[in-house]
């Protein structure tokens, strides 16, 4: 019996512990956001957060998620208003859209630890997420946009610049992510 938390909900799994997390999320929990692209951790379409860090769900066994908090794209917001989702919509990043949930989850993890990333920071963090349609320029621009949105959301009430930075990053982590 494996206990884990998915998007804030406590779950128990008693199937094959070697089954990749992706199939548990998609087919058992009906969370279809994380996608199957390669099955080998090569494309990043299945990226989710495990205790706040990105993992490739296609090649992470459920057993590796025991007692962990998993966040999928569905856990970012119930209405598409997470700053990263907002930025993605404003810039209309997707073409086919198949890789974008994975791109978004990698972007959230980056912004959580680096609220104002440079192009080089973004490239390093995002290089494991392939986009077959080639939307990289918009993905990068949307990450900058999300950083701005988060900073402006948090600067309104804040007065101390130091608080801005740390809170901006914290805000990008969805609720429940990184916390048991």
């Amino acid at each position, binding site marked *: 019996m494996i206990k884990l938390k998915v998007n804030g909900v406590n779950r128990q799994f008693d199937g094959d512990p070697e089954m990749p997390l992706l199939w548990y999320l998609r087919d058992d929990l*009906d969370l*279809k956001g994380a996608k199957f692209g390669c099955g080998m951790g090569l494309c990043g379409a299945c990226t989710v957060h495990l205790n706040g860090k990105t993992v490739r769900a296609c090649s992470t066994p459920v057993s590796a998620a025991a007692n962990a908090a998993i966040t999928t794209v569905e856990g970012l917001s119930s209405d598409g208003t997470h700053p990263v989702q907002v930025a*993605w919509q404003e810039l209309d990043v997707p073409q086919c859209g198949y890789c974008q949930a994975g791109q978004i989850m990698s972007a959230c993890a980056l912004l959580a630890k680096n609220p104002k990333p440079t192009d080089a920071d973004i490239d390093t963090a995002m290089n494991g997420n392939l986009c077959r349609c080639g939307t*990289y320029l918009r993905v990068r621009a949307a990450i900058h946009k999300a950083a701005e949105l988060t900073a402006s959301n948090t600067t309104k009430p804040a007065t101390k610049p130091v608080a801005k930075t740390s809170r901006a990053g914290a805000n990008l982590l969805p609720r429940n992510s990184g916390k048991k």
Partner: protein
Amino acid sequence: MTKTNLNRRSFLQVTALAGGGVLFGLYPKAAALAQGARGAQASLQPSSFISIASNGLVTITAKNPETGQHARNMLPMMIAEELDVEWKDIKIVRADLDAKYGSQFSGGSTATPGNWEPMRQIGGAARHMLIAAAAQTWGVAESECSTASGRVIHKASNRSLGYGELASKAATMPVPDLKSLKLKDPKDYKIIGKTTIGAETKDVVMGKPIFGIDVTVPGMLYATFQKCPVYGGKAVSANLDAIKAMKGVKHAFIVEGQPITGNFMTSDPGLEPGVAIVADSWWAAQSAREKLEVKWDEGKWATQNSVDIAKKADEISKQPAARTLRKDGDVEAVYKSGAKVVEGAYIYPFISHAPLEPQNCTAHFQDGKMEIWATSQTPQNGRGMVSRILGIPENNITIHLVRGGGGFGRRLNNDYMCEAAWISKTVGAPVKLLWTREDDMQHDYFRPGGFQYLKGAVDSNGKLVAWQDHFIGYGDGERFTASGNIDGGEFPARFVPNFLMQSSVMPLGLKTGALRAPRSNVYAWVFQSFIDELAHAAGKDPVQFRLDLLSSGTPGGMNAERMIGVVKLVAEKSGWGQRKLPKGTAMGIGFHFSHQGYFAQVAEVTVLANKKIKVNKVWSAGDIGSQIINPGAAENQTQGAVVDGMSELLQEISLKNGRVVQSNYHQHPMLKMSQTPPIEVHFIKSNNSPTGLGEPALPPILPAVCNAIFTATGERIRTLPITKQGFSFA
């Protein structure tokens, strides 16, 4: 219900809706005849192009499959513009496959040219009838009425009525003569030419289940399908009892299929042989497949190897060509005249479409009827194949057009649809078939590889005077393998006085098919690279050499003026010849005409140590007519085309012992974010009807990058992938 002729092929149908609404549909004539027997009831399906409810809600149906080109925005944009409603006020719904929508096809960059007129006409006709209804209500002349934001306005009396209020009356108005229907002056456009956000973008960023792989049906089982690793092979026996005993497995069986025995494939072969495993979860099916042991009859292609194919092509190149496709003047006489002669053998591999969403399909056979959820780009073809192979009449087959995670031409074929349908019918339950990446990469309809042996000459004035190409591809006799054909009209035919295009073919045991900008995606690389060789041989600037060449044509085929326009624009925007570049950095240009679109692209490239290439920047100039319908999406498509083309410089599918060697993205790479240059996108709005963009924006980038590499290093890339000559992207 009223009808009027729209053109030879279709008529407009207007239907009153219960509750006071109105439907506007554009119906192909053939379908109308077929539909006639079903009578008025059939035409009342709420699935027409425009539905205006009495509460004013305007719903527009997007008829084409969506695989990422924003087709589900563009066609509704055309309707909404002429209907004169606010984009934010409409609801877009996706169509299922239905003859009443006419062609539902996604490919060949045809959505714009094929729909530009009829989609606007249907919106304009609806608007006209709403005006007529208002004018009659008020007792005023139609000419005194105008429309704005979903309302008809009578300015003189300061009255207005919403479309919803007018809907039921509009349904009784005479249908306008569409030939005399006045469509908007483009300067009045409020939607066309303005960026709209993708109709499904919000669903995408929220992870909503909108893709083919996300489909679930109550009671659904999951299937995997193992085909013979050698194309055309079939399963003789398998350890089916052991597989059936595995956890979760419900069924395991051999599918006889229709093994192909010919010398090559021209199109969808139908149902291929293999072994199906059906389980209560996909993971269970896939885990069982790991234990599957199949005895294959590998058939006639089991010894096919890329190395042997290349050797054979080399031998053929030394023989006279099998066919002459075009002969102008006398190239041999030019070679003897003292002109400067250049030769180059260009070699390119098979490559895979590799859309990120592996092929999948959900099918449910029940009571003699088949319901299918598919990402097909050609659902009409798919339905025909399923009907033929399973013996189910087409009108008992329903197909839902589910968003596809990338098409690029892969989903023009419907092999996965036939497999899913067959498996569902066999087991009598709804089944989702999902391929692995390995299945997808090894059982693709590959972009055909090929060999082109070029020879050309420039005279003492630096003018291109001779061009000769011996194209060696695949086929049988006078037939070429799918998307592996060439003809005598390829540029620079008609622009060179002495021109010889010849071809020879070899047999091939591999499926081939259309990859985004089929043929052009690699022929542009061959032709534009060799033109560059000739420009350098002539001692001419590569842009000027091309402009001179484009100015020397004879009528027919592409419009040289439009191509000159984009070449000049891209040269200007990139600062061609105007900027001093450091050593190891250079610019290259390529242009290509395909799918009615004119594109030229410049790449600025720095070659670092160990032949690592950094593409610093790309400039693109295109002419696809008078309107860029959705500019934001057009920029995204163009940038994507450049990234896609750069990826193709790295890719290769090869064969060993009849099997595809590559299996996943580590062996068939695509460009990463860090390798993606800034890409400037420019368009010339020329006085031509709008045409498609998805494909023609791709081909020029391949030669642009390779030509820049040559200028930077002196090394000409004549073999793809570029890794064969030691190059790679930094």
